[in-house]
């Protein structure tokens, strides 16, 4: 076996790296706020889409805020140590 392919050491020094879940949480949280506020503002004059009476934006905004908030809090840097 070509030993040169095995030379590079495997490093495990990344335990201080912010987990990807934190980034996901932050982005989903912000998206949730934007979508919820936009949908609430348009509540009485919803966009001309099919099933507009279901106010999908409000439900989606709430889900995103809950999901994003959960991930953000769970993986918040100071809470990890």
């Amino acid at each position, binding site marked *: *076996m070509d030993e040169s392919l095995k030379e590079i050491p495997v490093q495990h020094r990344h335990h201080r790296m912010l987990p990807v879940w934190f980034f996901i949480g932050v982005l989903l949280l912000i998206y949730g706020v934007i979508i919820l506020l936009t949908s609430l503002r348009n509540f009485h004059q919803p966009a001309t889409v099919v*099933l507009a009476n279901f106010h999908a934006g409000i439900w989606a905004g709430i889900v995103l805020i809950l999901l994003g908030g959960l991930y953000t809090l769970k993986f918040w840097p100071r809470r990890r140590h």
Partner: protein
Amino acid sequence: MSFVLPALWLSEGGRLISLTVPDLSIIVLYFAMVLGIGLYLRKFSSTSDDFFMAGRDMTAWVAGLSFLSANLGALELMGWAAAAYQYGILATHFYWIAAFPSMVFLGLVMMPFYYISKTHSVPGYLQLRYGESTRALSGISFAFMTVLMSGINMYAMALVMKVVLGWNIHFSIWVSSLTVAAYVTLGGLYSAIFNEVLQFFLIWLGALTIPILGLIEAGGWNGLVARIHERVQGDYTHLWGPLGSFSSNPMGVHWTGILFGLGGVIAFGYWTTDFLVVQRAMAAQDLRSAKMAPIIASYFKMIVPLIVILPGLLALAVLPFNLVPESAVGPGLHSYNEVLPLMLARYCGPGLLGLGVTALIAGFMSGMAGNVSAFATVWTYDIYRPYMNRRGTDKHYVRVGRWSTIVGVIASIGTAYLVTHFKSIMDYMQALVSFFIAPLFGTVILGMLWKRGTAKGGFWGLLTGTLASIGMYTAVVIHPAWLRYVALSTDAKPMAENLYRALWSWLICVFVTVGVSMFTTPKPAEELQGLVRAYTIIPSDGDLPLHKRPIFWGVGVAVLFAVLQIIFW
């Protein structure tokens, strides 16, 4: 699955969707986040193991979601939604039989060899197992294909953005490619994987509105089926029932083609040997995580039809107009390929629409980043290092990796512009991909499971299988009547031809590899340790609790698969 996507490009007509300020804010925030992640991860990508293999430090979940996301490009989303509109639920075969068996096989059987050999790439494994010539053939063809694929994805994305949003093609190409170049160059595979996991969430959350609201509008699954039967003739809602003959289904394929060609060869070739996806599993932190990564991905792959196939079927049921083939598009008409944006526009108001469009952009960028990061690794480890500079330092190879990322993106942009002038390239692209994938699977699997396979056998098997595939394709182009010999029927359509051609080229590769190996000298046993089943001690999972064993989850997805086949038979 991107290896046999239906051709996807859109007419350059008027826009389908108008975005508001909240929509645009969501898109801009997405770009800011992916670039921010790249900048943040730069400091963690100083060694070549960090840059090319993400430090081999990914958990099973991160590696698994990234594994799937690298495949889940927007071409995939939009192409298969269009295919579902054309072919009905038959398109789901490309997510079920073409995914779970091969992904579980990769995890349980093949991943130990990739992982234990500590290779950096699939061509790297071939070098260890067979020798330089097989690596060179595989590495060069992979690098060539990857750049072409990336460029074609880029062009398709730009065209989608033009049709859907009215964006300028050059703007879309340059903004998306520079963003991908920036974050992959900065953070290497770390950055690509982090962004792929992020993109996975965005794709799901952005697209999920369509099946939920669509099923409400259609009156549930039963209502959907009833509406489809009212509007179109033929069986669009059964998986296996219509596959008794080539002419009894809209895809023009026989069940043997789906079972052996798609599920048996193309799927195994793609999921187990395409370095674009395998690289993600190889970046896992330990062998168990590496084995679990494709198995975790297989569960999500099984439910991807919810956001891809179901929207296509819903469009068949609820859209008040019929979509047409690309060639028939005219004023006021929409093509099959516009089905996903049309359904987004149907259900999503301001804000949600931005999330849906971001899902499409995320899909394109995850596919592009996957191609570019895999290209950089194969170029650096399998072309540059062995053939141009064997004595470079670790830092030197990281620098080469960053530069090859940029070169890969530039080459992709060049390909994108080439395609704008020669759109027929896209017709050949799917065929080109299938030329290399099917025989490569024959070479790799024989290498792992058959100790007698020799260097000459591996090389000539791979070369012959590839040439045979090209030969069959060319023969049918020149003499269309010869389709009856390749696909076993004059009723077969291009999709069926792809499946059977893959099957024959794999068989040819296997026969030639075995034949040549029987007359040449194999490597000594000590050189094959960690590479071939007979000479490798694979750590047992027997000491793990049942719920942590990869085999347990592999059986679980098999049961899920069986249940779905029965339900939709």
